[in-house]
């Protein structure tokens, strides 16, 4: 028995090494399945919780143009959550179980959404930096080994680029506006810069899952590689805005062909992961309320569907 499972695992690894995609009904090691359920659902929850800090500003957007764009972006995020939940469900977990894990706190979502969005400029910073960081991760994931996850990522990446552009446009308008507007843009950058760098996760040496994830081609780049890529592409974008990145250690390094940057406050990182960020409790409360308050709608829809189906049968009879 043990020999058979070792042989299956070897064959599985050989498929991955050949660059084949794994599909839902294919044999896979239990740990591959579990890692994917955890990672895809965490990703889905992030999309769903990610609607909250931006939803906060829809009714107060400064113009109709900004409002329809923000509304469309938040609607996309709901869609992205749904693509990802469907991908997770192919691994044999139900939607109800997934939602339950979010609501009772056993599943995580990206810590970035535990920071508050205090001013309109935060809509700019979130689109530019948070979506920018997410895109770097998601572009890598379009090549991930699990087929349903990779396909969801392709769809998401196509839609995500408008998110970042609308955020940057907000920053551009503010940065070229009055002194007060420019100050607001700088303040948003100051507050979102470090949490955005934290989105790539712990340093490689503190990330025990990285090695296995690389071997299974769940990830193709390490946390630190992705973080470096983000810094290198974002610094020139800040320069165009005329804003200053809040890191005194940020400096171009000719030898490595990239920027050196300061150390992340890892104590803060772990504290927010553990549930003590500025908005953790509020986010969970909002999600729980939304779920509980929607329960009667979900039940009524099922009863309605059943009645309609019965009516159809009795008409035929």
């Amino acid at each position, binding site marked *: 028995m043990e020999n058979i499972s070792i042989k299956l695992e070897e064959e599985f690894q050989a498929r991955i090494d050949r660059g084949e995609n794994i599909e839902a009904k294919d044999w896979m090691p239990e740990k591959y399945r579990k890692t994917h359920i955890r990672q895809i659902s965490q990703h889905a929850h992030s999309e769903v919780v990610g609607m909250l800090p931006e939803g906060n500003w829809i009714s107060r957007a400064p113009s109709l143009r900004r409002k329809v764009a923000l509304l469309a972006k938040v*609607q996309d995020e709901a869609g992205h959550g749904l693509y990802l939940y469907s991908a997770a469900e192919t691994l044999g977990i*139900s939607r109800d179980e997934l939602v339950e894990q979010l609501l009772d706190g056993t599943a995580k979502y990206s810590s970035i959404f535990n920071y508050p969005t205090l001013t309109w400029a935060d809509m700019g910073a979130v689109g530019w930096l948070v979506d920018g960081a997410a895109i770097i991760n998601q572009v890598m994931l379009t090549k991930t080994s699990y087929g349903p996850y990779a396909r969801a990522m392709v769809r998401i990446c196509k839609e995500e680029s408008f998110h970042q552009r609308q955020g940057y446009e907000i920053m551009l308008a503010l940065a070229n506006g009055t002194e007060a507007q420019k100050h607001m843009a700088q303040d948003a950058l100051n507050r979102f810069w470090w949490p955005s760098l934290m989105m790539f996760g712990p340093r490689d040496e503190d990330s025990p899952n990285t090695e296995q994830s690389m071997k299974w081609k769940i990830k193709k780049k390490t946390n630190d590689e992705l973080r470096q890529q983000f810094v290198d592409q974002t610094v020139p974008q800040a320069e165009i805005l005329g804003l200053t990145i809040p890191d005194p250690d940020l400096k171009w390094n000719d030898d490595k062909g990239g920027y050196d940057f300061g150390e992340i406050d890892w104590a803060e990182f772990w504290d927010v992961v553990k549930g003590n960020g500025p908005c953790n409790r509020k986010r969970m409360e909002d999600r729980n309320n939304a779920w509980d308050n929607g329960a009667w709608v979900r039940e009524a*829809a099922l009863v309605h569907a059943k009645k309609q189906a019965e009516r159809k049968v009795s008409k035929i009879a």
Partner: protein
Amino acid sequence: MNKDWPIWEIFIRSKNGLDHRHAGSLHAADAEMAIQNARDVYTRRQEGVSVWVVESKHITASNPEKSGELFEPAKDKVYRHPTFYNLPDELKHM
């Protein structure tokens, strides 16, 4: 009663003249709601002109472990392809 809405597979025709293609899946209480949800989830940027929805439980899939016996017989039948036939280069329109 199971309170989870059933899963539906969504097929979308991007424009007339092309096939419906599998776009993904979603939950809905009934077929009508599945079409509405598919509109919102899969065609927010004019990706479709027609939608088919099929409850996932009605789809029978082939077993990947039997892929060999199902699909390998076609492997050695190269004579089903036009390039199998050796013809002179000067031959046109064929």
